């Protein structure tokens, strides 16, 4: 059963990333279409990159006990696109998360306007703005 360890670790990591995403409404929970396009495009680019690398004989698949050994193509294990999708999702969540932190620190009016116009799905930064009116009467 150790053959599924790597794939399982990837899926658990993706699940954990989704929890972070859902909690702070960063990517899929903020704009699902944009997130799907972004992760899809990123995964496709990195997968083509892999295939080119395999074509030039740069990479080969290891005979790891942690991998299923199931191949999508010569030297391309089934875990690879899952890993690439995870890497893309991680990049998206990290960049949008850092951006959220920076925005909440600097309180840039620009984004506050844009976010509040798009509706209620914007997240904690907006809740702060909603709570504000009671302070100034």
């Amino acid at each position, binding site marked *: 059963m150790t053959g599924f360890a790597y794939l399982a670790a990837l899926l658990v990591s993706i699940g954990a990333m989704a929890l972070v995403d859902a909690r702070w409404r960063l990517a899929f929970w903020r704009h699902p279409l944009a997130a799907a396009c972004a992760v899809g495009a990123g995964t496709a680019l990195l997968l*083509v*990159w892999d295939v080119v690398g395999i074509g030039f004989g740069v990479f*080969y698949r290891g005979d790891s006990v942690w991998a299923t050994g199931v191949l999508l193509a010569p030297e391309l294990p089934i875990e690879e696109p899952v890993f690439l999708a995870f890497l893309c999702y991680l990049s998206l969540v990290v960049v949008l998360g850092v951006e959220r932190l920076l925005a909440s620190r600097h309180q840039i009016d620009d984004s506050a306007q844009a976010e509040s116009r798009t509706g209620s799905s914007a997240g904690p930064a907006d809740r702060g703005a909603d709570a504000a009116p009671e302070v100034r009467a």
Partner: protein
Amino acid sequence: MTYLLICVPFLLASTVVAVISLRRMPAGTRARRVLALAIGAAILLVLTAVFDTVMIAAGLFGYAEGTRLGATIGLAPVEDFAYPIAAVLLVPAVWTLVASRRRGSHDPGSARPTAPAPAGSSS
């Protein structure tokens, strides 16, 4: 050298998409995104150094002799770090391009369209 040369077109493509998305942002949003990309890239590079090393040590994949520059960080060949850099450049850029395209129809102020509004359209 082979591996490094393979990285070039993919890094270039990612950079082009990142620049396109940045140019469409208002100045304040752009400055914040650039900073977020720099911090995000730093985080991803550290994670890559750690987890690429673990994955190579676990024997998940290997590299043919004579295709790499030879320098490594941990067990990770330096060329491998092009992957997270490309991901950081491309993925949030695509997200923003798609999200602001949608948002643009509701609120033209947030995503500045390249062409001015209809007015006296010339066709």
